[in-house]
């Protein structure tokens, strides 16, 4: 195996390294004007010229010829006694990771109880979302439920309406499965044009967990579901909004889970503690949190979140109702918008792909805005209706590039371009935007969100 040849590239320092303090202060005080902008460009160019030909590693050595001070001088953590066990009885991320947080998009909503906090996909790894960074979308705030007092009722077209406690559900046969959850409105802001800077805001209503719970089919059978007449189920929450959604009976009897746990622990309150529905492949709003009731019915219910919200407007003024499945979609999470590449050379281009109709078959990556494509490596396991991580090596030579990823799922469906999606649905659909995402890399190393044609 031969290592990838990394050519000696240009080095671009972070702005704080080549702008002097008085300039930064002036800008802080008075903002940018055209003169200061052009001064900064010149400073950038000068820094680049001086260091032309140096790699990051070479630059470090140039400053300290004997070797890296972080090697030659032992740091405090190598020369002191560490913290005891159970110092933090519930573990927390390292302090240096605190920039990666769930965040709201300013101006998207005016009330924080009916809003979205996006997952910071730009800094995450693998196919599972850290539980504390799982995206949030609530319709009337989140609640903390006493599990002892929580009940799940199953009624409607069943032989016997029944009530279960959380303890009852823990006694039933359980399944543990990895699935993605994506809000139907993920990437909604981008239907007409670029609107937000980073992958956190373009794609961050996306998370994945290993869920544990009872198959809904188990409960429906326990109640004696009327399979002849049942066409759908209604799922209802126990929070103030008591959010309701209709779910197709074929889904309900297949892989839908009444989940009490995610990633090895009970669900977090923001994610529906103590019970939420997991509806693999279907948009997040149907994964009813704080689940209190399942009603089996023979007609769909046209609830508020399937008659006023989560309806997709077409150019002729018609709304698509009961649009549910999240079709195949992918995105490069790094490098991605709002980042700056500080040096040329090798990068691991990485991202996520998923399909609400099954497994990911293949992901291709383009560096020239979609003219030529290379097939990325898929990490295993590749599971149905789960996130699949892809990776591809890239040597950036400092020239401008436009990065895209394109997924094909096991049905042979290929993720559409913006032109194709808009030709089918216009630009006001809000929901189910699964278009190919483009990230433009400028010669300066700045990566930005763009749409191309």
């Amino acid at each position, binding site marked *: 195996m031969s290592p990838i040849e990394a050519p000696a590239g240009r080095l671009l320092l972070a702005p704080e390294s080549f702008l002097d303090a008085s300039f930064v202060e002036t800008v*802080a*005080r008075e903002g940018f004007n055209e003169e200061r902008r052009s001064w900064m460009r010149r400073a950038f160019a000068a820094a680049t010229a001086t260091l032309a030909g140096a790699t990051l590693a070479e630059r470090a050595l140039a400053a300290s010829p004997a070797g890296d001070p972080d090697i030659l001088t032992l740091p405090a953590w190598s020369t002191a006694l560490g913290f005891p066990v159970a110092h933090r009885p519930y573990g927390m991320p390292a302090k240096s990771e605190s920039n990666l947080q769930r965040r709201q998009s300013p101006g998207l909503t005016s009330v924080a109880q009916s809003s979205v906090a996006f997952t910071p996909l*730009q800094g995450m790894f693998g196919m599972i979302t850290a539980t504390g960074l799982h995206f949030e979308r609530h319709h009337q705030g989140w609640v903390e439920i006493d599990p002892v007092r929580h009940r799940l009722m199953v009624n409607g077209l069943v032989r016997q*309406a029944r*009530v279960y406690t959380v303890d009852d559900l823990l006694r039933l046969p359980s399944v543990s499965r990895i699935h993605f959850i994506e809000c139907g409105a993920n990437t909604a802001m981008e239907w007409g044009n670029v609107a937000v800077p980073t992958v956190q*805001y373009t794609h961050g209503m996306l998370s994945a967990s290993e869920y544990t719970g009872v198959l809904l089919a188990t409960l429906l059978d326990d109640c004696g579901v009327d399979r002849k007449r049942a066409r759908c189920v209604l799922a209802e929450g126990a929070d103030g909004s008591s959010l309701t959604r209709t779910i197709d009976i074929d889904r309900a009897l297949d892989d839908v889970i009444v989940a009490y746990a995610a990633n090895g622990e009970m669900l977090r309150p923001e994610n529906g503690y103590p019970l939420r529905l997991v509806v693999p492949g279907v948009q997040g709003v149907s994964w009813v949190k704080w689940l209190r009731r399942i009603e089996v019915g023979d007609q*769909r219910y046209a609830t508020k979140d399937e008659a006023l919200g989560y309806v997709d407007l077409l150019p002729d003024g018609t709304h*698509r109702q009961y649009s549910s499945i999240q079709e195949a979609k992918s995105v490069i999470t790094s490098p991605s918008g709002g980042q700056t590449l500080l040096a040329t050379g090798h990068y691991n281009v990485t991202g996520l792909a998923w399909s609400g109709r099954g497994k990911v078959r293949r992901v291709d990556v383009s560096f020239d805005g979609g003219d030529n*494509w290379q097939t990325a490596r898929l990490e295993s396991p590749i599971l149905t209706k789960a996130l699949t991580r892809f990776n591809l090596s890239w040597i950036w030579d400092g020239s401008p590039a436009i990065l895209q990823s394109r997924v094909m799922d096991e049905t042979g469906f290929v993720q559409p371009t913006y032109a194709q999606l808009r030709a089918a649905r216009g630009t006001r659909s809000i929901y189910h935007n699964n278009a190919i995402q483009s990230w433009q890399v400028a010669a300066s190393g700045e990566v930005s969100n763009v749409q191309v044609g």
Partner: protein
Amino acid sequence: MCRWASALLLLLALDASAARYVGVGRPATEAEVRAWDIDVRPDFSGLPAGEGSVSDGEMLWIAKCTSCHGDFGDASHVFPALVGNTTAEDIAGGRVAALRDPGRTRSMMMKLATLSTLWDYIHRAMPWDAPKSLRADEVYALTAYLLNLADIVPADFVLSNKNIATVQARMPNREGMTDEHGLWKVDGKSDTRNRACMQDCLEKEATVLSSLPEFAKGAHGELQKQHREYGAIRGTRTLPDAIAAVNPQDLLEANRCLSCHGMTDKIIGPGFAQIATKYQSRTDAIDYLKDRIRNGGRGVWGEVAMPAVPQISDADLDTITRWLGDGAPH
């Protein structure tokens, strides 16, 4: 096999599930099902009997709904407008013409195809801060008031379970929904068909059609602080140092300020930019604002009082008020 044994076997087969999960779950009582089974379907099954007039609805509306939805249901400062942009022609034809026009605001009534949806939602989730507190007659009255605002029923109308179906026949967008799409069934057919071309796929070189305008680059705060601050990939600097150091959005979020205050505009209380403007020339502005935040106040900006925020840390209070003193930049 004797007759009683086969009868017993039949019974066991009928109740096989109960036998499988012995001791788990129990039958629901009728009262329990009645208490929770509150949904109302488009065919109005599940709708409780009752009635409410437009004028009763107006009184309730003023008492419970105007702060979010405005006097006439057309406000959009907190939630999207409820009524507006529906016409007599729409009521006659069952399709809302303004939905074809991208320039028009989409009100709730423009989209509403099934009247049951509105009744069900008000009943289960309104008012915002006291859901499920309305009696059935009150829900009828509020529904009637909204229908009257959209000219679907006259001002002297009394909506009831007996006449609601006739009102359904007048809903402006009753023919506006379709389920002709591939997104309901897992094996549904998509309406896009890309192909996985690998080489020389574009007829002309890719050009950028849309990008973030310069003025919007800082709208999501300091992006450098939303990425790891080590390695060769960093977050791009988007704000000048003075603002980046404060990061007001996080502090306002953490102290629950954003539920009532917008960054620029009023939600329930005034927007931060409005506060900054009002007090910009007041020499004791910082101390005054500290007191107002910590201890609350009323009567300056309107009827709704500013609740006290006793738990806010001195450091956060200091940072937020200094940021307000600087004009609330974001």
